[in-house]
């Protein structure tokens, strides 16, 4: 009996040794795929699409940018796949949002910063321009204030120039041109939103990603949910929102591409019962851009789409 036990233990030990051995060998060979395809370019990995887009605009042909989170992926719900390891490992530069947008990954980025160029694109935005949501904690959705995203663009430009000074002049020039476009975009948003009558200038969305947008373009933002997509919402929020819609005669509410429609539909149903018709004003992009290759697949196109949708529905 005792001997049987000892020998089975021994066998187990052998199996374990064998397994660790093969693992080490296999891991050495590496089953990784190449994250980047083009040689001779500066390899940049960006977490969200908005950052990837700006990096590509500023870098032009000199850089190859890959994004971790694809179109329609909510950064709060992002799950890493095996290929993402190579995207981070092989990159010469990593750009991320910061302000805890990437959740627990932020800590990983801070650690990686010791070994390679890892830049939080929001790092140069002055703290007083950030929206504080709790003591010491800031709203990370800065891209909806185009002015703040211009600061992010400058941060990206500076990072590229520092990493690849030989092509610095080119990055500077491209950034200059792009910043010009962003300035126009900022003005466009201001002008367009101002055409909505003040009383009905309220946008209701299921996701509080538009705080910066509201501040910058003078439109009241009412969210049904807290900032986190996973947070539940209380029934008081639903009734309060419904009453506000009816009282102020708001014509439409907005559903975003990365939030389930169900929560907002409950509010519309409630308003209808009180005799006030509310439309769904169309989809706004919040945490993620549209598909690559479409106009909404770029940062500028995405902001334009949101502005036009809001103005079209509320005016």
């Amino acid at each position, binding site marked *: 009996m005792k001997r049987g036990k000892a020998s*089975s233990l021994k066998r187990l030990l052998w199996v374990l040794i064998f397994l660790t051995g093969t693992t080490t060998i296999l891991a050495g060979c590496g*089953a990784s795929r190449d994250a980047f395809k083009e040689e001779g370019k500066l390899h940049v990995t960006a977490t969200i699409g908005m950052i990837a887009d700006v990096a590509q605009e500023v870098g032009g042909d000199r850089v190859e940018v890959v994004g971790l989170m694809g179109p329609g992926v909510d950064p709060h719900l992002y799950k890493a796949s*095996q290929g993402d390891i190579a995207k981070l490992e092989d990159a010469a530069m990593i750009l991320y949002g910061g302000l805890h947008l990437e959740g*627990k990954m932020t800590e990983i980025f801070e650690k990686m910063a010791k070994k390679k160029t890892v830049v939080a694109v929001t790092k140069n935005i002055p703290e007083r321009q950030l929206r504080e949501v709790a003591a010491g904690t800031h709203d990370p959705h800065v891209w909806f204030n185009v002015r703040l995203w211009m600061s992010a663009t400058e941060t990206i430009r500076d990072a590229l120039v520092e990493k690849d000074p030989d092509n610095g002049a080119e990055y500077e020039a491209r950034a200059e041109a792009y910043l010009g476009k962003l300035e126009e975009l900022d003005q466009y948003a201001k002008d367009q939103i101002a055409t909505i009558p003040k009383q009905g200038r309220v946008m209701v969305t299921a996701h509080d990603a538009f705080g910066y947008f509201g501040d910058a373009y003078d439109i009241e933002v009412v969210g049904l949910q807290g900032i*986190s997509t996973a947070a539940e919402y209380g029934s008081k929020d639903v009734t309060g929102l419904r009453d506000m819609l009816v009282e102020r005669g708001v014509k439409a509410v907005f559903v975003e591409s990365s939030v389930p429609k169900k929560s907002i539909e409950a509010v519309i149903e409630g308003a209808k019962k009180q005799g006030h018709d509310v439309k769904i004003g169309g989809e706004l992009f919040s945490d993620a851009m549209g598909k690559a290759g479409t106009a909404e697949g770029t940062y500028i196109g995405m902001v334009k789409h949101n502005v036009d949708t809001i103005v079209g529905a509320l005016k």
Partner: protein
Amino acid sequence: MSGFWIMVTGALVASCCGILGCFLILRRMALVGDAISHSVLPGIVIAFLVSGSRDSVFMLFGAAIIGFVTVFLIQLFQNSGVQGDASIGVVFTSLFAAGVLLISLNASQVDLDLDCVLYGEIAYVHWNQLMINGVEVGPKAVWLLGITLFLIVAVIGLFYKQFKLCAFDPALAAAIGIPVALFHYVLMGLVSMATVSSFESVGAILVVGLLIVPPATAYLLTDRLGTMIGLSLVIGVISSIAGYYTAAVLDASIAGCMVCVAGVLFLLAFLFSPSHGLVVRKLRQRASTAREAY
């Protein structure tokens, strides 16, 4: 190197979970891991409210404390006669609800869900290195889980007979003077420690999966507790390694693939186990009916 550390981390999680899972399955409390994965929510909210930061140290601390509270309450209710599954259900739903309530009252604007602040990602363990005197000494997760595994092996190894008897026949254990309640509490405390530290390193699905699936597979293959623990370790380790390579081929979530491989192994055992497998049982049945007809 990152692949190697991911598999080591996976194997460590599998080992911690594999040992404890066997006892949990025998006690019909396998879902306690899932329960802890939800019930720690108030812990992270309170840790945030007190510290004002979402730093993982505070989050881990808050989660660990509420993890212990969870298993303590589950065990307490069970000792007082509430059904095992009911006491798990009552405790974790109430605690999770308390967490949701705390968020909506105090921190509805802050991104505080478990996925964002507590659950780690196994793909990135390699980059979270532990530094001692400015020298990297391996991923933090490997150290954390290694220490946890050592503790589990030490405690279970020292009191193996007592744990075994408490799991199989608590009445007999009590009759011969073993403090059954104490051993139940110790086991649950270990479970809480293992799951919370694993959540922080590798995320929830991997822990909950490896706590149940490999031991359940082993349970189909043997009737002896020692062999069951050994098999459950081997199955867990195979799942982590094969899962990693599956994820590499599919370019998919690593934790997801590891648990899927474990699920496939379970299915194989369910069908083809020499003692309890579906196929063998059917064959035996046919043989015996044939004999009767003869």
